[in-house]
């Protein structure tokens, strides 16, 4: 062995010895930190309770549930978990990743949820159930408004060529189908053009890191709907109040993509004020107004509207109108209902994802004059609960 080879060999051995020590130190240091690190019950960032040390039983040991729960517990309670998550996000950003869990990272600060036409039949079934239901009430004026998501209206913000299905294409087909059904009492309200026009004016229609529309977006939607409903919307004044200015939403939690930007949450209050009482029918509680301060201070400030989604809300207002509205809705409607309150004396809000009652009894008993279906396209396309509650009534007859 030459001197040089001997030197190289010595250096190599030194490297491996050092690495051996470093390897053991890394493993044991993290194992030790893990042992002493305080346990957390809840992650605000991920909006979920964190797994706790699972209890060992013969049953869960035998079927392997214990080992799964253990792994979940270790990952959830890992020391400084959020720092590691951030580190991985950074790695992904450097490696050029733009997609995670159904969410695209756009060049600007927006996170955009994908639209995937996985099963057109499911939505067609919903539409058929809606039409069949409305056919039973030819004397009630009805409206359906599907709100486009940011993947349509802010399409130009998506990474170029992102393999996303076109909401516009699906919507055009859907609107044609509804029109072909020929219900004289049904009006389809299409807010896409109005929303796009506002975006072009530089207005913010969607939250940057949340899948909902902003209150301003809901305002534009309400304006379109009010026109179809023939309401004196333009005569109404609104007072804008900022109630939250550090809003980071569901899309950030879902994707793990960090966004430094935060949004403000606004409320538009009728000016002059009107009296509103909201009854949470299945919770047996009645509150004044539409807004929840608990929802606002929780992890999801969008819950300022009603405190979240409830199966059935009955809102009565001091409005002199003799019209009574029934809304089938998802959470997009939560931000919009306030805009309709001055024009109806009663509004019943049904969220089919949680509602279990008989919808026909409700429709008949409440003296409803108007029915409105209000969804964002993603939910309407994916959620089967609307057709379930509408058909459920039929089966009972």
């Amino acid at each position, binding site marked *: 062995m030459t001197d040089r080879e001997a030197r190289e060999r010595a250096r190599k051995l030194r490297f491996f010895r050092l690495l*051996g020590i470093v*390897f*053991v130190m890394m*493993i044991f240091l993290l194992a030790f930190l893990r042992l002493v690190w305080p346990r957390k019950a809840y992650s605000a960032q991920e909006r979920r309770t964190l797994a706790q040390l699972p209890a060992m039983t013969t049953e869960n*040991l035998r079927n392997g549930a214990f080992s799964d729960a253990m792994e979940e517990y270790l990952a959830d309670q890992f020391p400084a978990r959020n720092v590691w998550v951030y580190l991985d996000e950074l790695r992904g950003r450097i490696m050029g990743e*733009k*997609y995670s869990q159904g969410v695209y990272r756009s060049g600007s600060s927006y996170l955009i949820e994908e639209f995937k036409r996985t099963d057109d039949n499911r939505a067609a079934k919903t539409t058929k159930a809606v039409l069949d239901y409305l056919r039973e009430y030819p004397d009630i004026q009805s409206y359906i408004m599907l709100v486009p998501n940011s993947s349509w209206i802010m399409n130009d913000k998506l990474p170029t060529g992102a393999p996303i299905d076109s909401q516009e294409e699906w919507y055009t087909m859907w609107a044609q189908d509804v029109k072909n059904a020929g219900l004289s009492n049904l009006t389809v309200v299409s807010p896409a053009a109005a929303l796009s026009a506002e975006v072009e004016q530089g207005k913010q229609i969607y939250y940057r890191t949340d899948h909902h529309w902003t209150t301003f977006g809901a305002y534009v939607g309400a304006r379109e709907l009010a026109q179809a409903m023939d309401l004196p919307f333009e005569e109404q004044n609104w007072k804008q109040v900022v109630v939250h200015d550090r809003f980071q939403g569901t899309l950030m939690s879902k994707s793990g993509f960090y966004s430094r930007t935060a949004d403000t949450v606004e409320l538009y209050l009728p000016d002059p004020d009107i009296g509103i009482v909201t009854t949470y029918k299945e919770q047996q509680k009645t509150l004044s107004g539409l807004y929840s301060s608990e929802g606002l201070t929780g992890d999801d400030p969008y819950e300022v509207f009603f405190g979240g989604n409830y199966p059935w809300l009955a809102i009565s207002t001091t409005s002199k109108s003799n019209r009574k509205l029934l809304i089938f809705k998802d959470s997009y409607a939560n931000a919009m209902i306030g805009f309709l309150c001055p024009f109806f004396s009663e509004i019943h809000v049904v969220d089919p994802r949680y509602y279990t009652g008989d919808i026909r009894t409700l429709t008949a008993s409440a003296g409803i004059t108007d029915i409105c279906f209000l969804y964002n396209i993603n939910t309407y396309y994916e959620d089967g609960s609307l057709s379930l509650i509408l058909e459920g009534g039929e089966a009972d007859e």
Partner: protein
Amino acid sequence: MVFSSMTYLFVFLPMVLLAYFIAPPQARNMVLLAFSLIFYAWGEPVYIFLMLMSITVNYVFGRIIANNRAHHSRYAKLNLGIAVGWNLVALGIFKYYPFVSSQLRGIGLGFVPSLKLLLPIGISFYTFQAISYLVDIYRNQIRVQRGFLKFALYISMFPQLIAGPIVRYEDVEKQLSKRKVTLAMFGNGGEFFLRGLIKKVLLANQLGALYVQIESLGVAHTSVMTAWLGAFAYTFQIYFDFSGYSDMAIGLGKMFGFRFPKNFDYPYTATSITSFWRRWHISLSSWFREYVYIPLGGKRVSPAKHVRNILIVWMLTGFWHGAGWNFMLWGLYYGILLLLEKYVIHDRISSHPWPGRILTFLLVTLGWMFFVHTDFSAMLTYVGHMFGVGCSFANATTGYFIRTGLFVLLLGLFFSTPIFHRLNEQFAVQYYTASIALRIVMFMLCVAALVYQSYNPFLYFRF
């Protein structure tokens, strides 16, 4: 348990290291065996009984065969037959019965009972180890292991238990009785382990995500180029996934003083299919050569028989990878390619390595698309897209995947060649503090990815 899990890295590994190095040398086999059994039972404890039974049966038959091989060779042969048969029946029931019965029921034999069985982890690997041990004893190539504990450790040793390499007894015989770990050897093991972890967590998982995204594209978005990008992503994914696991196994072996054979030798730089299979999952292909191909007569027979031998070996190789027709097809595909190489192409394109290298890589890539699609219509659709059936050559989505996936694909390409390892070694010798720092950073990135990814299955678990 898998190596790239929180449970393994921060609970199991520190405990086994602590216990092993605190224990007096004569107790160390016991420690390793105990931890191996816990490792195996973790998550699927029922099959620990199958494992213990397999160890006992093979231990007993090994001794019977050894005692009779000199003077009662017929009796030894009979016992070899029984023991090998037992191993194959166990493998057959747990791995293939659900598939076979569903096929039989599918063709109208409704009386065949269907049985839902979870595949015991690693059964394909430890069964093959046991068979090689028995046959080697019968052939008088090794001495029988009289120590039950040592034999149990050979079969169940946790580093290579669930995804290989398939270790032949002669490779570890001496180490089972006497082995020494120096700090440098331990560090070398750490190097292998880290390399494997990086391959699995930072490369394979990202490549896998890219493949899944492309694979799920509807016909409206896909194109020839996109389909090939996806196929390349899977090709690298499976290499880093599997060779990463082997690296981790080899590294852990070194930490405890075992030297396991090399399982991969830069397979994607192979210049022919023959050479690819000398470089891919080496311990499996040499097992089939040693215990199936050569006993059938190898190539020292008539061409017709040789063709038969090749096809048998490759159908079995395919079937070993999973109970499904697509694995059979995948094996047969290689059988045919190897025959073509041997009888038609000969050395015609080997004057320069690059045409062969590129062609081999493309054929291997295509092969993985048979391998990955258990559903035939999905397979036909995907492979169809690769050849332009029903889609355009490229579109805007191709650009999207090039922009978001090219970096990780190029990393994949780079780490599939020996260039990186040469550079890495030189760098480690010359700038060892920087090299150590780099490894700490890479380890932290692995941990970060593990914390982030709650979903982390090993591809090779099915086998």
